[in-house]
C-alpha cells in the first residue's frame, strides 16, 4: 500500500523500525504515525465501538475524531493517528474505554 513513485512528491522516510500489533511483529518507518504504519501494513480495524463492537478505522488523521484510540506501551486511549511510531512500540486494540489508573 506504499506509494513508490509519485509525479510531484519525493517521500523522505525515516529508518525502518519494528513494532508489535496484537502480539504480531510489523515494520514501519520511524516518524510516521502509528495509524499510518498500520494502514500501510493492511490493518484497517483500529478499535471497536463500545456497545455494538462495530469496527472503527482511520478517519480524520488530525487527532480529532477518536476513531483510532489504542493502547500503546501500556497507555490507553492514545490517538494513534497523531502519535509518531518508535522502535519496539507495543500497540494493542483496547477493550472499551480502557483504564486510566493503569497508566502509571
Amino acid at each position: 500500500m506504499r506509494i513508490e513513485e509519485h509525479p510531484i512528491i519525493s517521500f523522505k522516510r525515516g529508518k525502518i523500525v519494528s513494532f508489535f500489533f496484537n502480539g504480531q511483529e510489523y515494520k514501519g518507518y520511524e516518524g510516521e504515525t502509528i495509524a499510518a504504519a498500520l494502514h500501510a501494513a493492511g490493518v484497517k480495524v483500529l478499535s471497536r465501538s463500545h456497545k455494538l463492537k462495530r469496527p472503527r478505522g482511520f478517519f480524520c488523521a488530525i487527532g480529532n475524531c477518536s476513531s483510532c484510540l489504542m493502547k500503546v506501551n501500556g497507555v490507553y486511549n492514545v490517538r494513534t493517528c497523531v502519535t509518531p511510531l518508535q522502535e519496539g512500540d507495543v500497540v494493542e486494540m483496547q477493550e472499551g474505554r480502557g483504564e486510566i489508573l493503569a497508566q502509571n
Partner: protein
Amino acid sequence: MKSLRKTELAVIGGGPAGLSSAITAMRQGAEVTLIDRDPVLGGQLIKQTHMFFGSKDQFASIRGIDIPSELIKALEEGPGKVKVELGTTVIGYYDDGVILMEKDNRATTLLPQRIIVATGAAEKMLPFPGNDLPGVYGAGAVQTLMNVYGIKPGKRVLMVGAGNIGLIVSYQLLQAGVEVVAIIEAAPHIGGYLVHASKVRRAGVPIYTSCSIKEAFGRESVEGAVICRLDENWQPLPGTEKTLELDVICLAVGLSPLTELLWQAGCKHKYVPELGGYVPVRNEKMQTSIPYIYVAGDAAGVEEASSAMIEGKLAGLFAAASLGYDHDLESLAATYRKELEELRSGEAGSKIRQGLAKLIGGVSVAS
C-alpha cells in the same frame, strides 16, 4: 508558587492563518507566542500538493506543501522574535484570560493580553448506513495518508462531493496510482472550479451530479457502496440505485470551524451555513464579541488557505494595533482588505460573500 507566564499576544494554531498572524504582529512590534498541537508548523498546508491561485503575495503557482517553509523563514527573519510552542494543545480558557495548555501530558498556563484563535476546521460527516466502517475517510485524512506518508488509502475510491476538495483530492489519488471509480455530488452542479473538474474528467473519472450515497456495506471494512440519483428536492429516486465494488469512500462534504475555545470563552456565534455552520461573530478587524480575542482562517468561516493567510494578517495587524503597535495601520489594512476582496470576487466567491454579509451584516464584502 511560580509566577504566571505572560505574553502580549498568543496565536493558537500554526497553520496558514496562525503563521500569517504571528508574522504580521511580530513585524508590527508585538511580542508573540505561537502555539500548535502538531510537532511541525504549517497546519494542513503540509499535505496540499496542488498549486495555489491568486497573486504573488498569496503564493500563487506555489504548491501548498512549499508554503510553510516560506512562512517559517519570514517568522525567523524577524525583526522581532516569535516564541513557538509545538506539540502543545490549548485545552482551556479561563475567565481571567489565562489559557491552559498540555504538552507531554503536563499542564501549563499562559496569560496573554490578546489571543488570536486560528484553530482551523474539521471534516464534516455525512449520515448514511455503514458510514462508520473502516474505509470511510475524510478527504483530509486521505490527503495526509497519501501526501505526507506516501501510503495509498486503498484500491478503488468513491469520492463523495465535487467541491474543490473532492476534485483536487481525486486528482491526487490518480497521481498516487489509486483508481477513482466516480465522484458523486448531491447538488445539481459541480461546486468546484471548472479547471479542477476538467482535469479529473480528462483522466476518465466520471462526475455524477444529483447523485448521493445510499449506504456503504462490508463486514470488517468497506466492500462496496450503493449510490442513487436524487430528484429536484434532493430525495432518492427509487429504482436508480447502483452498486459499486470499492474499498474506500472519501467524504469531501465540507468542513466545520473548530471553535471550541471561542465557545468556551463565551464568544457570540451565529449559524451561517455558507461559512461551514456556527461561526464566531466578529467585526472587520477580525475581533470577536470578546474584545481581546481575535479569530482568523477556517475557524472564522471555512474558506481557502489563501484567504486564511490574509485574514491572519488582518487579525495580527489589529491585535498588534490594540496593544499600541499601530505602525502603518491604515495603509496595511487597506492593502490586505483589497487582497481579500479580489480573492472573494466573481462567481467562485459568491457563497463566501453571502455568508459574510449575514455574519457582519453587510458592512463590507472584504471585511
